[in-house]
């Protein structure tokens, strides 16, 4: 059948299972927008294209499907970039479609022309510029295939305006895509498998490092089976939160820079690390010179470039995690590491003795950990929380206990402030029956709060918790520890967030003491539609524990015990914090 390029876009997208797309129209993409009206696609009109790419990302993370966004050429396309970079670092399957100026005008600095394939090259898994309508259908199919196969990632398709207008014969080709240069595989070598089994059998102090790959691969049951069969404790990366039930007796909790001290201690003392779909990011390893010095390492990852990138490993299994564990699990022998686990529990006692929830049930000022903890309590731990970036994100990691997969959505690798609200809109669009909470700081929220209008326009039942300390809290914390409390550009003037909400017709509440936290959350849950709660918290809180950047996992800045004493940041740590090569 004859179709225009614009129609082909929707012919392919609907066949690829896309029912929702996030976008913003403009000149170079207008033909495609015009054709959209005739297809069963729900278009979400964003207020800034960055929102569109975050929404597509959030949608993809929550549903496991490919998220889709669309924008015009030039500024429309460049506004997508932060969202694409976010999706790239967190391996989210996203397809972004952008209009480009007419193919004859490319290279002439035409109005709203940007070399978008050039600009997006380093932040996409792959991208395409389409200047011939006969290639369009195949390119779009490839884009979806590349986005979701192997290690997922964002793919951008830039379509010249005349291609959208041109007509060609369209026939749906449903044979599986086979690309000569893209051959992700699922099968690891038998030799790697047997070597891994030997190490597992010999281990006395094993720890599983559970990463995002578990979620991307859908390997929850397999990881659980592995952990239970071998009686191996499980430490979580930030994006590994919700990959393994937090309430499981073998779950230790988060690792790394703001992970629990006993978890990091367990990693340092371990004799076998089982890295499941994680990439030894600097935020979880601290300085690699002293990382887990006694441990053999087995790394299972689908991406060969992750092997030996940061940490040299003893066995590499380059495979889809689920497929690898399906092969490993039947050969596992029952392990008994109760002595090892008991030792970790002992270390954990020290952490519990410092725990702020236990030791400071009430305080003069409202504390952020209380807000997150009470949100967990009020939602019975069942909500999908979409967290922004900063201190509240770390509290969310520490204090909201996630048991179900894909229930913490957050920008881990790129640390994109402003991610939470738009991503949550994407999450809610994809999972309309779930209770979805935005948890954002006052800084990050203001970066993308224009998307409140999008949430209202879409009639979403979305709850928003702003943790407001009138500071860029995490940056302030670094200044406190490493820069002699010189608070350069971290105090914030803030609007009255409840009034901002009011302008959009959003019911809003202000909470500044602990007693009101749960009742107000309850009220918000009972109020349909978008509801916003501003929590005014203590201004100068510090996220404990903390490993200064460039320091060893063994050198943590700890929360003072039982509220007594002060936290000393040694000169050495200060130097490490300022001088670290990594940020």
């Amino acid at each position: 059948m004859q179709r225009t390029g614009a129609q082909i876009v929707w012919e392919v997208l609907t066949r690829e299972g896309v029912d929702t797309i996030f976008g913003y129209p403009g000149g170079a993409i207008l033909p495609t927008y015009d054709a959209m009206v005739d297809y069963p696609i729900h278009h979400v009109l964003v207020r800034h294209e960055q929102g569109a790419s975050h929404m597509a990302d959030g949608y993809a993370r929550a549903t496991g499907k490919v998220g889709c966004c669309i924008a015009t050429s030039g500024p429309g396309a460049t506004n997508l970039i932060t969202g694409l970079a976010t999706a790239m670092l967190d391996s989210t399957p996203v397809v972004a479609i952008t209009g480009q100026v007419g193919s004859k005008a490319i290279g002439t600095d035409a109005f709203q022309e940007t070399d978008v394939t050039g600009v997006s090259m380093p932040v996409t898994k792959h991208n395409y510029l389409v200047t011939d309508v006969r290639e369009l259908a195949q390119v779009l199919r490839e884009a979806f295939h590349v986005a979701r196969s192997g290690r997922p990632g964002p793919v951008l398709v830039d379509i010249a305006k005349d291609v959208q207008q041109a007509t060609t014969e369209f026939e749906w080709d449903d044979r599986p895509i086979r690309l000569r240069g893209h051959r992700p595989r699922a099968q690891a070598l038998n030799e790697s498998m047997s070597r891994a089994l030997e190490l597992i059998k010999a281990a006395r102090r094993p720890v599983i490092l559970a990463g995002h790959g578990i979620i991307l691969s859908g390997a929850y049951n397999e990881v659980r089976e592995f952990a239970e069969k071998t009686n191996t404790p499980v430490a979580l990366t930030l994006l590994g939160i919700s990959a393994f039930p937090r309430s499981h007796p073998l779950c230790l909790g988060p690792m790394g820079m703001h992970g629990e001290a006993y978890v990091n201690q367990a990693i340092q003392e371990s004799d076998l690390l089982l890295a499941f779909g994680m990439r030894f990011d600097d935020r979880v390893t601290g300085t690699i010179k002293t990382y887990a010095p006694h441990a053999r390492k087995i790394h299972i990852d689908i991406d060969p470039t992750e092997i030996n990138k940061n940490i040299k490993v003893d066995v590499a299994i380059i495979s889809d995690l689920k497929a690898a564990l399906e092969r490993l699990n039947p050969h596992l022998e029952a392990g008994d590491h109760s002595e090892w686990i008991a030792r970790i529990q002992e270390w954990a006692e020290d952490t519990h003795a410092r725990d702020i929830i236990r030791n400071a049930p009430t305080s003069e000022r409202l504390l952020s950990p209380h807000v997150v903890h009470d949100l967990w309590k009020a939602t019975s731990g069942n909500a999908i929380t979409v967290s922004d970036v900063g201190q509240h994100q770390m509290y969310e990691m520490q204090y909201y206990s996630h048991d179900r997969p894909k229930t913490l959505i957050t920008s881990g690798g790129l640390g994109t402030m402003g991610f939470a609200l738009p991503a949550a809109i994407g999450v809610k669009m994809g999972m309309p029956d779930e209770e979805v909470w935005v948890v954002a700081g006052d800084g990050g929220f203001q970066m993308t709060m224009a998307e409140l209008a999008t949430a209202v326009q879409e009639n979403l039942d979305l709850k928003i918790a702003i943790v407001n300390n009138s500071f860029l809290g995490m940056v302030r914390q670094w200044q406190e520890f490493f820069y002699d409390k010189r608070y350069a550009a971290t105090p914030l003037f803030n609007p009255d967030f409840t009034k901002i909400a009011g302008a959009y017709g959003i019911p809003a509440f202000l909470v500044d003491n602990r007693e009101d936290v749960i009742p107000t959350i309850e009220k918000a849950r009972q109020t349909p539609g978008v509801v916003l709660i501003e929590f005014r918290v203590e201004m100068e809180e510090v996220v404990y524990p903390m490993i200064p950047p460039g320091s060893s996992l063994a050198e943590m800045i700890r929360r003072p015990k039982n509220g007594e004493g002060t936290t000393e940041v040694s000169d050495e740590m200060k130097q490490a914090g300022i001088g670290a090569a990594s940020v």
Partner: protein
Amino acid sequence: MKHILVALVENKPGVLARVAGLFRRRNFNIDSLTVGTTEDPSVSRMTMVIDSTATDASAVERNLYKLINVLYVQDVTNEPSVIRDLAMVKVSAGPENRGEILQLVDIYKARIVDVGQQTMIVELTASPSKVDQFVQLLEPFGVREMVRTGLIAMKRGDEPMFQEETDEHARGEWRVLNTN
């Protein structure tokens, strides 16, 4: 140590930019990179020389594979292969020097491809170290201009360099197993 990687890539616009962008982004240092056509018009061939003291050649190889347009990569450093570099040198060659230069050209099996009043262009195709020596020997006469293509390599023997079912992932796993 120098590593020589040969890659087959799709002959499409922007592929060179992707490879160059990858090197820049991952902070890979390369000594030389050549691109040329092959027996298959849809495929180009790249030869890269990497100083492995600064850059892990295996990481380069694996990262290249991640590019969708890259079909095959092989590290031929330890494979029996023919390795060539082409140099053109415009050397000062007044009447008093010509004889001596011609002798060198003869010994190195180079060719004179242009003769001017005061200069000559000498062309040499040889292994990179031989080209180095040759250029060094010409220097006392006065090298006015010099250009080298960068190195290209081809594996010796009847076996094809790249096989359709080459499993790059298996190679990566072996490498880890064998180094431990």
